[in-house]
């Protein structure tokens, strides 16, 4: 029988949390495996969220998520620089419409200041008129948090994965963890792609973290999905708002927001709905209604005609806070569960915390001298000037071969995305934006399929949207 290697650390899940942990661990002399059930990383919760790097406001004082959010907000800046990501520090405004609401703003402000959120101030009506002209004129004040920003959530995950891979971490996609056997010490991990062995297992399985945890007998928490529907508007409306606009938060969520994504599209949402099914990614008419009501309260000129896309995401919530702990009942197993919002923001801080736990529990963390902290910034024509584009086209004619008309994506960018790991149409979309504009891929789908087919030597009929079972076409044409 072939002997199975024993990894020092095995991470379940290649969402933002698993990816951040893998990248952080790859600084050290360790053997690392990341197992992901989907065809590509970032196909779980981490692909469908608001992409906000929260400043740390709106978290209960003393909460784990509050602390990690604040830390993550600082760490993300360095990560963006190192990994060539566009982090935009847009600043956030929590808007008040009544005197009572101003009182609540003051409470939020003082709680957040205790936590250490920097630069907070209350701005008045005149400031709002000047800086946010499309805001509802009935707004009388707002809490301004300058350190809030936006990032492309999936490109963050891809950057973390690519850098971890470069530093020796191994990624196994389409590899679903089915059972875990505690071998005292260490673990045998049974998957859809065979058996893995590891000394330490980190459970970052998002919505399924309760199920994977139960595999080692830890079943004292349950992940209760909370759905959020979001609506993306045409980037023609990119000047709708200048900041991330929030209403006052409710108990369960931050409310319906009006933001601008890192790629420049206005986005409104999310709803907060408790659902049973972990695969219920449907959007509904009620959701649409609720989101527009909420968004129009903040920015009245928002119109349904500007919708170009919508999606729903599920927050993997378990109680009110994150669950990040070493399981003494299954020594070597660390749960990183219940990573609801602000999980995207907190991920880099979670990764550092997990490393700390591992060190404390006896794993030797010895720094690699040859750790590569940087990643070359991928080129996106949509966010550079035409004169820069001109230079690139001279270097490589492929930049002049435009594939996606709405978002101006070239064949070269698509090829680079495939080289970096894209294997599906969604993978190409998340990396390049091709298919994410106003025509929704009507124009570029066939060309993208052909590039993907050629580069990966896959027949056109086997090209999928997001993995097996989602083939784009049903077969070849057979003339009758």
């Amino acid at each position, binding site marked *: 029988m072939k002997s199975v290697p024993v990894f020092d650390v095995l991470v379940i899940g290649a969402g933002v949390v698993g990816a951040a942990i893998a990248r952080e661990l790859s600084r050290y002399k360790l053997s690392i495996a990341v197992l992901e059930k989907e065809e590509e990383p970032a196909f779980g919760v981490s692909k469908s969220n608001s992409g906000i790097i929260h400043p740390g406001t709106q978290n209960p004082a003393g909460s784990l998520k509050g602390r990690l959010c604040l830390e993550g907000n600082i760490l993300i800046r360095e990560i963006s620089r190192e990994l060539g990501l566009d982090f935009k520090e847009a600043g956030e405004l929590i808007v008040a419409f009544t005197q009572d609401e101003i009182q609540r703003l003051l409470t939020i402000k003082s709680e957040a200041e205790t936590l250490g959120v920097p630069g907070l101030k209350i701005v008045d009506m005149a400031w709002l008129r000047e800086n946010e002209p499309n805001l509802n004129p009935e707004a009388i004040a707002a809490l301004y948090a300058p350190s809030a920003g936006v990032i492309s959530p999936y490109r963050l995950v891809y950057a973390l994965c690519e850098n971890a891979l470069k530093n020796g971490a191994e990624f196994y996609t389409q590899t679903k963890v089915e059972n875990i056997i505690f071998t005292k010490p260490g673990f045998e991990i049974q998957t859809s792609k065979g058996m893995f062995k590891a000394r330490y297992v980190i459970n970052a399985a998002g919505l399924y973290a309760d199920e994977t945890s139960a595999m080692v007998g830890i079943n004292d928490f349950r992940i209760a999905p909370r759905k959020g529907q979001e609506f993306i508007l045409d980037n023609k409306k990119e000047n709708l708002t200048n900041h991330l606009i929030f209403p006052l938060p409710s108990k369960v969520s931050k409310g319906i927001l009006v933001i601008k994504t890192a790629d420049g599209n206005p986005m409104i949402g999310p709803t907060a709905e408790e659902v049973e099914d972990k695969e219920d990614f449907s959007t509904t008419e009620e959701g649409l209604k609720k989101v527009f009501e909420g968004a129009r309260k903040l920015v009245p000129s928002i119109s349904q005609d500007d919708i*170009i896309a919508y999606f729903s995401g599920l927050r993997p919530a378990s109680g009110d806070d994150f669950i990040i702990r070493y399981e003494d009942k299954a020594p070597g197993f660390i749960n990183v569960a219940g990573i609801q919002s602000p999980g995207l923001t907190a991920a880099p801080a979670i990764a550092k915390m997990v490393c700390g736990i591992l060190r404390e529990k006896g794993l030797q963390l010895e720094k690699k001298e040859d750790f590569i902290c940087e990643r070359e910034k991928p080129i996106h024509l949509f966010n550079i000037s035409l004169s820069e584009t001109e230079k690139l*086209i001279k270097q490589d*004619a492929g930049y002049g071969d435009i594939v996606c008309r709405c978002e101006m994506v070239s064949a070269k960018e698509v090829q680079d995305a495939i080289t970096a790991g894209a294997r599906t149409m969604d993978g190409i979309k998340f990396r390049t934006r091709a298919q994410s504009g106003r025509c929704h891929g009507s124009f570029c789908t066939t060309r993208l399929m052909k590039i993907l087919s050629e580069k990966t030597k896959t027949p056109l009929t086997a090209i999928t949207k997001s993995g097996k079972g989602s083939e784009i076409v049903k077969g070849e044409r057979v003339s009758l």
Partner: protein
Amino acid sequence: MCEKDLVIVGAGPAGMAAAISAYESGVRDILLLERDQYLGGILNQCIHTGFGLTYFKENLTGPEYAHRFIKKINAIKEIEVSLKSFAVHLTNENVLTYIKPGALEKIKAKAVIMATGARERTREMVHIPGTRPAGIFSAGLAQKLINIEGLLPGREVVIIGSGDIGLIMARRFILEGAKVKAVIEIQKQSRGLTRNVVQCVEDFGVPFYLSHRIAKIHGKNRVEKVDVVRVDEHLHEVADSMFSIECDTVLISVGLIPENELIEMAGAVIDKKTNTPVAQEINKTSIPGLFVCGNSFKIYDLVDSVSKDSIHAGYQAAEYIRGLG
């Protein structure tokens, strides 16, 4: 930056007719840009007949109709054709930037005619709730997959909307051995031409649900079924009228929108509802020397009318250039 008398963007029937007409009206320095690798525009994928009945008094296929213009274009050496050339920027002084493999070019033109055609309205624009699996196509994309790429997008198809492209695709799918389970139209009447309703749907016995609306798309990886409801005259859902149809494919055929992002970028006044230029006269815009023709000026049912109006645009541009002296 080089200079040109006339630059035409888009070489579908509109752009080609405008180029020929401008030449015939005396313009001798014409550049025709087309982002695709061939001339003809959307006609290349319309392999059915029904084109040219008024313009040529003949019943032609789309490619045959286009070919009559392509032959002419190729015979006129003063019309410079640049394929795989994608116009990306336009100013209110008719400075146009385009990209092609290996080059980015900037041109100052005396006049510009935009003949960029139309794009299809999407599922998102009509807010169809549900999931977003594989198997949802715009009708035009399905047409391209079958007619140009030789692929079969699906086997059990429901068509949303009764625009001409959707109707034509109903017949196309049936001829390819697929099953078309329904055409669903929210209005009381078909949006498409009567001849297409008869020849593409009724003749094949496809269930045609007028005053019905799709309420939800189901399916995780691939479309599995759709929910359909009946609507009253105010287009409101009729209670308890919901039923489901199993299918693996949903085609969206809910109309076309003129593609006018470039003239909008240049600052021309645009009607937000129709995405067409607002101007005093046909084929003109609020910017002097900037003309629009074909489906980007307004959605025409018949290509014959596209050709006719585009000839007018070519003539207008020639007049304008002559006026500059």
